[in-house]
């Protein structure tokens, strides 16, 4: 399941979709909206996507993960629209026979999603707003 939705993410559904009878491990990543960014209070975030391509790129990432690890089930759901701090922006779940590959595959999927899937995020602060442009793999503080 790859879902790009304006509706709140149903985490249990993501987990259930990824679960498989023969799996001994289900690994779940839940990304939530932080209340601060760039040392400023976040009022809300606005997400938008190039939806058809976002689904296609996510599918490529899943295919790559399935080639690297023996996935038994998986699901990705990403929220669009206006999100307030604490709300769930993304959920990724994978199930595998053993835990090690479920951790690795889940991390690969969420890390790849952040820089390869055409989803765009605007941070709205008390004194303005900006489209986030920092690369997620950079650990430098944002200006």
């Amino acid at each position, binding site marked *: 399941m790859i879902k790009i939705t304006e509706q709140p993410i149903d985490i249990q559904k993501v987990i259930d979709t990824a679960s498989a009878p023969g799996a001994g491990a289900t690994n779940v990543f839940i990304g939530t909206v932080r209340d601060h960014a760039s040392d400023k209070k976040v009022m809300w975030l606005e997400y938008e*996507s190039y939806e058809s391509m976002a689904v296609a790129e996510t599918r490529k990432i899943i295919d790559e993960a399935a080639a690297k690890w023996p996935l038994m089930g998986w699901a990705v759901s*990403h929220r669009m629209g206006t999100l307030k701090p604490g709300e769930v922006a993304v959920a990724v779940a994978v199930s595998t026979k053993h835990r090690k590959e479920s951790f690795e595959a889940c991390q690969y999927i969420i890390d790849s999603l952040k820089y390869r899937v*055409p989803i765009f995020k605007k941070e709205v602060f008390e004194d303005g707003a900006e489209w986030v*442009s920092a690369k997620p793999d950079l650990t430098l503080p944002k200006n």
Partner: protein
Amino acid sequence: MKLQLKTFGVTRELLGGRVVDWQFEGKTVGELKRELFSRYPSLADLQSLQVAVNQTFAEDNQPLTATDEVALIPPMNGG
């Protein structure tokens, strides 16, 4: 040729519409980027600007045709 550019995020705000008609004088993705940077210098200040052709990221040397689905992809920030 006339292209219709899909825009997202900061490119949508800079170009002022979700779909923008563009009279393209060049042939390739790289030439399109140069035209865009010339008309909208702020685009060149972005950390990255990629072009997707028919929903696949394109290299600068890829030729464009009037029937291609062309989209401007600013820095991505899923998650």
